[in-house]
């Protein structure tokens, strides 16, 4: 039986530190809200996913932007009591009559 050589691990490009002012990362930054809202054409999404695979900084940045949007969506707002609703209605109708 021929022993098959273990497959070589896929080489991920080294995450070299880079300046995020650099064109590619800034280009990605512009598209990120549309990306996380799933509003980009497939080919652009693919380009962004490839970039994220190569750039841990941008990947982390996207994750933090997603978390931010999720927190905004889940942020509760206080509600009015029945008394407050009734009192405001009276004030509005009084103001409508008086002006």
């Amino acid at each position, binding site marked *: 039986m021929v022993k098959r050589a273990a497959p070589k691990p896929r080489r991920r490009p080294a995450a070299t530190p880079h300046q995020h002012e650099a064109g590619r990362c800034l280009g990605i930054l512009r598209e990120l809200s549309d990306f996380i809202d799933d509003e980009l054409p497939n080919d652009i999404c693919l380009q962004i996913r490839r970039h994220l695979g190569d750039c841990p*900084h941008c990947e982390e940045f996207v994750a933090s*932007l997603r978390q931010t949007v999720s927190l905004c969506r889940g*942020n509760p707002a206080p509600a*009015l009591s029945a008394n407050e609703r009734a009192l*405001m*209605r009276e004030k509005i*109708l009084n103001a409508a009559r008086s002006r």
Partner: protein
Amino acid sequence: MRDRFDTLYKDHVDLMYRYANRLCGEAEAAKDLVQETFLNAYRGFNRFRGDAQVSTWLYAIASRACLRMRRKRKGAPERELSLEEFIPSSEGEFHLQIPVEGLSPEEALQNKELRQALNAAIDKLPKKYKMVLVLRDMEDLSAKEVGTVMGLSERAVKSRLHRARLFVRRELSARGHAEGNHEPDHG
């Protein structure tokens, strides 16, 4: 007229109060804004043509009233947000410095400190960016509906929304909340 107003009020007062509270950040100012909104709606009821949903019409009235109230207070002039200012300059700025890993947004937001940080960040947004963020990400309107409310193109809405999200992200990232600082609080 009175019956129609009562129906309008009953069906939408909670929605408008939630929106007003998110815009104003405090209860009394939110109540003033709701009153102003429904007063204007009462007066303009006959001019409402039904082209948009009633809620969209009310959101638009509330948004205009909010901008008017702000101008009366003569606050600092609104500033524009540029994309370049949101590029992180050091490694620590790429992720959120807040304890959200492994938690749903609802669980994470039980943390009072996180809730306060989020609300403070949203509150610091220039008004025109804040309105777009609140309408799109908190009131769950589509970009097209936000455009109708604010009299903007969909493209302009998306541009403002993106800057607003980046602003809030940066604020949460910069607050330096310590890891493991997420004891739930139900207050």
